[in-house]
């Protein structure tokens, strides 16, 4: 590991500018940086507790209270009916799986492609994956009519030798989501080990010490440990990418393999993957904006350059989403099947047509209009709003695909609209639970992978060639 840090005394105004802009070129001593992270974890204001208490109450009442009530009463308290047998619960499932996508995408893809700007926010993104999947899991179980028998979905040895039906996309789903949850949790955990060790070494005592001690698995930072860690992370980073693609593709198959107008589309797989990235990216940028604004010392780690970089990604993904949307729409429309035609007409001209137009505006028009501008996309709050709108848009997209499309089938005598009931508190409950988990995590584990930042900073250097300042990055491994 070669240290190529520039001597500070030759600081030049251009260099200062670069340093201010780029975290990788703005190194601080390791001890100081570690202390900053520890402080961010420990520094808790009363506002935090108030928000956490409110969210906790919402989770208790909105999520667990309402769910218990629904289990006792039956799904009649929700808005599902015939023909809209699937409602917001599955919208939420798809939405949260989508959110969980971006975490791994950012982390793994960018890691594989060695994009340096990823370093300070991979952890925040990976946490999103895990916590998003938790909500997706809740939502899918809420959806079940007899959730108390949900263990029947798992292949387990039983006296009657009954197995789940592996022909069913729901069985594929279950396997895919479980695999993804396990893999992404491990993938979250591996890069966390050195930071946990750092936190262990900087914690004097109490339950936190024990907490970190256990979780750090005795990591001491030896050369051998680092080698093993790097190997493991490499393997996971590569392996998790196909898993990630498969999960959302399989989720899309829940719809695509069904004999329903509008669903039975071959492009749903990639369309869902890009849709998931679209909403996930929006969610990452929202999380980063909030973390940067509310947590101590985070302005150092998360800088406009990161928003700028993610903003570019968002713009590209928005274009990709538009491409797939158009492709899907075009082929369906051109097919001329009368039921599909009725469905497309219902999407645009039905009573919920506003959703369809709003979706296109917030998913395509607004990102395209805003994100082309570097100044705008570097502004955390502007991209926060764009990310929020994209998430609204992607929620609407799923809402249109599930309950609105289910209104239209091949039996017009049964067409009926969907009006959500207890789904609303339950949805709010899952959202609150997601935020609450995040808040708790921010107080327990370093939200910024500090060792990765330090590693990156070590790899970066500025050299002068004549009057030009050139940034160089050296290969570390």
């Amino acid at each position, binding site marked *: 590991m070669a240290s190529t840090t520039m001597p500070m005394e030759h600081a030049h105004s251009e260099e200062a500018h670069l340093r201010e802009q780029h975290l990788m070129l703005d190194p601080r001593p390791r001890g100081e940086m570690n202390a900053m992270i520890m402080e961010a974890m420990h520094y808790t204001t009363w506002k935090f507790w108030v928000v956490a208490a409110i969210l906790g109450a919402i989770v208790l009442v909105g999520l667990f209270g309402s769910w218990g009530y629904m289990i006792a009463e039956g799904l009649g308290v929700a808005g599902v009916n015939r023909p809209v047998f699937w409602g917001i619960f599955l919208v939420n499932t798809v939405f949260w799986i989508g959110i969980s996508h971006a975490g791994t995408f950012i982390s793994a893809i960018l890691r594989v492609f060695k994009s340096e700007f990823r370093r300070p926010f991979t952890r925040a993104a990976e946490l999103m994956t895990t916590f998003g999947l938790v909500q997706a899991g809740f939502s899918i179980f809420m959806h079940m009519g007899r959730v108390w028998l949900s263990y029947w979905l798992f292949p387990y040895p039983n006296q009657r030798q009954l197995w789940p039906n592996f022909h069913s996309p729901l069985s594929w789903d279950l396997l895919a989501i479980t695999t993804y949850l396990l893999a992404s949790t491990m993938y979250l955990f591996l890069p966390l080990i050195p930071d946990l060790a750092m936190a262990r070494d900087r914690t004097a005592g109490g339950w936190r010490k024990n907490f970190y001690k256990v979780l750090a698995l005795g990591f001491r930072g030896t050369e051998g440990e680092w080698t093993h860690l790097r190997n493991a992370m490499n393997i996971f980073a590569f392996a998790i990418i196909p898993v990630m693609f498969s999960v959302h593709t399989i989720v899309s198959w829940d719809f695509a393999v069904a004999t329903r107008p509008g669903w039975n589309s071959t492009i749903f797989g990639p369309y869902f993957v890009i849709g998931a990235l679209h909403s996930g990216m929006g969610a990452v940028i929202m999380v980063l904006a909030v973390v940067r604004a509310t947590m101590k010392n985070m302005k150092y780690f998360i800088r406009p350059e990161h928003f700028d970089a993610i903003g570019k990604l968002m713009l590209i993904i928005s274009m990709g989403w538009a491409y797939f949307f158009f492709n899907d729409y075009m082929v369906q429309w051109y097919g001329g099947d009368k039921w599909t035609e009725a469905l497309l007409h219902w999407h645009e*001209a039905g009573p919920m047509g506003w959703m369809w137009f709003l979706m296109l505006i917030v998913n395509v028009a607004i990102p395209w209009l805003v994100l082309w501008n570097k100044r705008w996309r570097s502004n955390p709050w502007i991209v926060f709003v764009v990310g929020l709108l994209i998430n609204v848009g992607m929620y609407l997209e799923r809402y249109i695909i599930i309950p609105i499309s289910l209104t239209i089938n091949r*039996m017009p*005598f*049964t*067409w*009926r609209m969907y009006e959500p009931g207890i789904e609303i508190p339950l949805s709010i409950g899952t959202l609150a639970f997601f935020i609450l988990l995040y808040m708790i995590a921010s107080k327990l584990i370093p939200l910024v992978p500090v060792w990765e930042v330090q590693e990156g900073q070590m790899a970066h250097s500025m050299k002068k060639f004549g009057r030009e300042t050139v940034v160089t990055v050296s290969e570390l491994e």
Partner: protein
Amino acid sequence: MSKKISRRDFLKLAGMGAATGAALTGCGPASRYVVREPYTQMPEYTFNGQSTYFATTCRECPAGCGLVVRTYQGRALKTEGNPAHPVNQGKTCARGQATLHGLYNPDRVTDPVSQSTRGSRDFSDMDWDAAVQVVADALSNTEPAAIAFLLGPAPDHLFDLVSDLTGAIGAPAPVRYGALSMFEARATLIQATESMLGESRLPVFDLANAGVTFSFGANFLETWLSPVAYTRGYSRMRKQEKRGYLVQFEPRMSQTAAKADEWIPLKSGTEGMVALAIGRLSAEVRGAALPRAFVDVDVAGVAEESGVPVETLLHLAELLAGAERPLAIPGGAALSHINGMATGEAVLALNAMAGNFGQPGGVFLSPVPPNVDEYHHPASLQEMGAFVEQMKAGDIQVLLVHGVNPLFELPNALGFEDAMKSVPLVISFATFPDETALQSDYIFPDHHGLESWGYQRIAAGTDRSTLSGAQPVVVPFYNTRATADVLLAAFAEVGGELAAALPFADEVAFMQDKLLPLVENKDANFNAAEINTFFAYFQQLGGWWGNQIAFTAPAQNTLNNAMTVAAPEFEGEGEFVLLPFVSPVLAESGANKPWLQEVPDPTTTVMWNSWVEINPDVGHELGIENDDVVRIVSEAGAVEVSVYLYPAIRPDTIAIPFGQGHTAYGRYAEGRGVNPLDLLGLKFNEAGDLAYASMRVRIEKTGRKRELARLESKIGVYGEGLGEEH
């Protein structure tokens, strides 16, 4: 069967006949002497895993369809049609299927009760001895002329018993009434038949063999006379080598009109003139001599009055003239109008012209039911009006009501409720706490129809003389008692000479006495050497019917008298003519059965409520949308009801189904929907039927909305929300 029948006898009887793959049993719980026992101590006739089937007669309407009820361990599980029964031949309607929801309804009257004040619902239980004493006192302490029995159209054995009873004590004969006969305008139909066919009986229309059928408002697929029998006729009519053709004339497309090949939406009350005009044109088309009857018809005038264009009339006339076996059926609202008699005659004249009296696919007179000399038709509304007048005048001291719910089934305008206040003692024998029962001093609940003995003479719907038999298929579920038994017991209590007039231990003994003339009749589905065996067969087979087709062919009518039908007259003010129609699913007594409430109406698919049908164009003009609550106001009253924009109704007509709007009658009926009878006036036609389709009404918006529960999709069926109506 006045002696206790042994189990060995029972088994012997049970083995005698087998139908529908399972033995139809003669006795079982039907035996008067089997008591309810715990399941651990089951009676012999029940076997674990085996069902027992009992034949009986459906009491949901007076048509008298034969049922076979599947019972299992003493519980009735399912009603099926009796395949051998001449009325329904194994089939049932929705109401017959749901009859079990009446039997096991949670809101039945479980014990004999007295009510502290009428309408208070403050009941105190009595025992049956006390109840019998109340009836006995009423019968013995009242001037016979001041005792009035008001009975429903079923069952006939009770009617016979009460007739004998009133005859014995010198009281007025029992009055029978049912809302269905009002909607069918039965009195008018019978009188028109008498005038055209020469006999005062119900006509039978051989739909099954008809080539082209013109139905003038007869909704024979719904509730008219004998709907299951006529539906079978319809089905056969369609299945003929050359598919039968059906044209329906009525202002609103009913379920029957929906099945017609052509629906002619004529103005309410002009059916008769249209029939005459078609008759004249048809005679002209055929080039035959114009019968005297049609000479005075002004075709252009009819077209103007009825709203049916001359071309359409001509097309229909050609259709009729070219038909192999034409048939014309008068019925329903058409007959009730002020010109109803003339309408009935005019429609029957079309048959006379076709010469189809007594011909296949033509008109017959219904067979004479056994053990009765004449057809006791239910009271017309005018007769009911006279009855009410008697009550008001204080001529009636004791009113005994069974099998009918006059407070629901009579128009408010008739004032039955008020008149009841002038009757010092009202005893109801209702199974359910219906409106009338709640305005009575006592309720002495009869068994449910499936727990009852009885017989029903078939007035329409069979081709042979039929006496449909009823027997209990389960032991009575509650502490109820057969009204016939209560009356016999009361009579015995009164004692003396009167008791000797009706010396029967119970209603079964009375029935057997009435069946005696049939015992040795060889030309029937069974006969026996003596009454006990006869009665066992009677129970087992579900009734007695002749082997021969017993239609009477009326004499041909030469149509020598000129006929005219006057223009209909309408009462009151308002833009719209109200057409009340019987809900095909609920009819007059189905509203207390939850499954019938949830069975969608055949034409609108509405469940659990009332609606008013308005032409969509009129709705748009008035700014009225689906599910808007509107106030329908007539001279006689007003109701508030949700709107159904019905595409197949004349713009000048609105229609409300009859069947809901109960203020009592159990949790599933009470407070649900409206009763269109509240809007009717008191205009009678010559035959005494109420001109119920001649009331003008106006519509007032209330600004409220109440969604109707429809099975259909408003989006898929009407294009609602798709930005286009189709």
